[in-house]
């Protein structure tokens, strides 16, 4: 291999490996759509949740690469470890891989010993929680019957605590923007969602997750709304983490759909808002824009809570969405008029994120069909019937309550079609008016 080729491999290799991981995730979503792929006596357990984690991990990896994060090979290795943890059917192996992900996270410069130790805490909590399940239940492979016997309050509390610490909930206590470690957060949130494979949670656990998730989402959105532009991405990441935990707390098909969609949204918001400059391309990253991905996530949160009969949470998440919509909208609305010229990296990142947001928002029915419905179906053993978000054929999405009655609707495709028709009509009317003058 020539030195030029070696240099190219060093430069582009991590991105190439992460892109392969993304393709693997999409392929797995297709292969494991009907039933999980189980190999080696349950040691490998690849299902729809694994596929979702692979896709999101690859998304975070590619975003990190696009943002020019240091040590790209290390970041790619962390992505692979999260993916392996999601593919592992063995609880101890998954926990150990999560610890490995934490080990690969870059340590903040000049961090105290305590701060360095704290970096390990979320993954440590999640790994300990998973290990407790195996130890108590006597079955370490989560795909096998009897694995749920080990799920108790201590293990769930540890995994929930790990997830909250990993998404950066301590930032709320310290009133400081949370430090971003998206892959550790993804790993810990995976561990939390994986618990639904083991069986249903009891009401106390659900209430704790609902309260924590809703509170974190609202508080993070409140903080994001007043944060300086450089801190918007971490706060909105925490808001999304709150949505995932709240979705898990709802423990319904609708809640899991919300959690999955919020996970998918994470890389996209990081890409657009990590180095934000006032520009109009940031509009689609605001939940104020109907049919954008953040808006659809907000709608899913409100709809899932309403379908579950938790109307107070629905309104709390509605308020959180309004507040979370403010920072990107502020940046977009205060943008100076566009000047023709070379596009800087921030503009390219914002444009890419905006395009992805529009695709993920308008394509939400496809995302639900391809990625999230299989996820809900495969975690069904641990879910309650209080709410489902389903496809509204060729119209958009519909949220149904326990009695299968619609409680919320977002006819996104019908809305988009009507908007196109109305825009065309208005344009023709304006042109005719101009011709007359």
């Amino acid at each position: 291999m020539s030195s030029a080729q070696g240099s190219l491999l060093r430069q582009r290799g991590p991105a190439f490996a992460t892109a392969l991981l993304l393709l693997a995730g999409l392929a797995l979503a297709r292969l494991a759509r009907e039933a999980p792929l189980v190999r080696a006596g349950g040691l490998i357990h690849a299902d729809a949740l694994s596929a979702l984690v692979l896709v999101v991990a690859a998304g975070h990896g590619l975003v990190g690469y696009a943002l020019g994060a240091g040590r790209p090979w290390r970041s790619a290795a962390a992505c692979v470890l999260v993916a392996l943890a999601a593919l592992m059917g063995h609880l101890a192996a998954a926990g150990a891989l999560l610890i490995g992900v934490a080990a690969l996270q870059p340590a903040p410069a000049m961090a105290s010993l305590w701060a360095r130790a704290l970096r390990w805490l979320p993954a440590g909590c999640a790994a300990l929680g998973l290990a407790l399940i195996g130890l108590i239940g006597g079955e370490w492979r989560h795909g096998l019957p009897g694995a749920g016997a080990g799920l108790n309050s201590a293990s769930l509390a540890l995994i929930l605590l790990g997830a909250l610490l990993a998404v950066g909930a301590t930032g709320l206590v310290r009133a400081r923007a949370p430090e971003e470690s998206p892959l550790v957060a993804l790993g810990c949130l995976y561990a939390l969602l994986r618990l639904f494979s083991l069986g249903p949670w009891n009401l106390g656990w659900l209430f704790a997750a609902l309260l924590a998730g809703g509170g974190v989402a609202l508080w993070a959105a409140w903080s994001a709304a007043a944060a300086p532009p450089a801190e918007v991405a971490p706060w909105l990441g925490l808001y999304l983490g709150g949505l995932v935990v709240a979705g898990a707390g709802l423990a319904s098909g609708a809640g899991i759909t919300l959690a999955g969609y919020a996970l998918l949204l994470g890389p996209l918001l990081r890409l657009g808002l990590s180095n934000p400059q006032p520009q109009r391309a940031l509009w689609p990253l605001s939940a104020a824009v109907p049919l954008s991905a953040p808006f659809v996530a907000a709608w899913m949160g409100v709809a899932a809570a309403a379908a579950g009969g938790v109307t107070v949470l629905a309104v709390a998440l509605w308020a959180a969405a309004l507040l979370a919509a403010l920072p990107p909208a502020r940046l977009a609305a205060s943008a100076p008029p566009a000047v023709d010229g070379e596009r800087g990296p921030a503009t390219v990142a914002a444009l890419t994120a905006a395009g992805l947001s529009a695709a993920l928002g308008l394509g939400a029915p496809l995302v639900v069909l391809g990625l999230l419905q299989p996820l809900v179906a495969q975690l069904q053993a641990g879910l309650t019937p209080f709410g489902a978000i389903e496809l509204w054929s060729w119209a958009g999405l519909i949220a149904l309550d326990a009695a299968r009655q619609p409680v919320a609707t977002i006819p996104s495709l019908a809305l988009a079609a009507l908007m196109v028709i109305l825009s065309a009509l208005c344009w023709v009317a304006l042109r005719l008016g101009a011709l007359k003058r």
Partner: protein
Amino acid sequence: MSELLGALGLAWPRLLLYPGGLFALVASWLLGMWLARCSCGPTAQVRGGLGAVVPPLVALTMLPLAPARSFPYGLDLVVALALLEWPQAMGWGAQRREELARAYAPLLLAGLGLAEACGGLELTRLLRWPEPLVAQLLLGASAALWLAALPRLLASGPGGLAGRLRALGLLLVAALPVLGALAATLAERLPADLAGWLLPPVAMLAAGLALGGVARVPERARARVELVLGVVILGLLAVIAGRR
């Protein structure tokens, strides 16, 4: 796919005549004049042209109002509010979170009451007058709070066609429970066809007059009304929660 295309094909009267199209343009202009008389007209101009006008117009087009031809794809409160508030959101360049919270908190509390009273967020549910008295009171108080919150929201909002359409949409959302109540009360006295033609204008007019009346109340007194209605809604929510 054919369902969607069929529905869009049948939506032309909604798009061009009622409740969107011609009706929306005329009614929003009349409402704008009325609000200006009641001194709660908008002050700021909105940027964006066509892009600011289309979302509120689509929301108006999809409102579940008789006697328009039924449209199979209805909106819910969250989507309707997002579409209607788009012209306002376009001017969020200098918006502070405290102002945002103050503007939308009564609306969200009203939304909580409406959703709880109707058992869901769909706009069509607002047309169904509930049977239990507590739910009726909750629906009425929530619609009243929604209406009471509008003058402040509209006064600080954008002007122009987009602002007027937004104001009309927000008003018509509050008119839906009024229409439901009228339909339930007069169901046995009016033939269904006549009710379909007569009651929507009556409900809209009642809501518009009520909005004008509320707008003329001094700001401090209006804040007290909002507070009282908020407490009433929370109390009724507690009663409903206690009965479960």
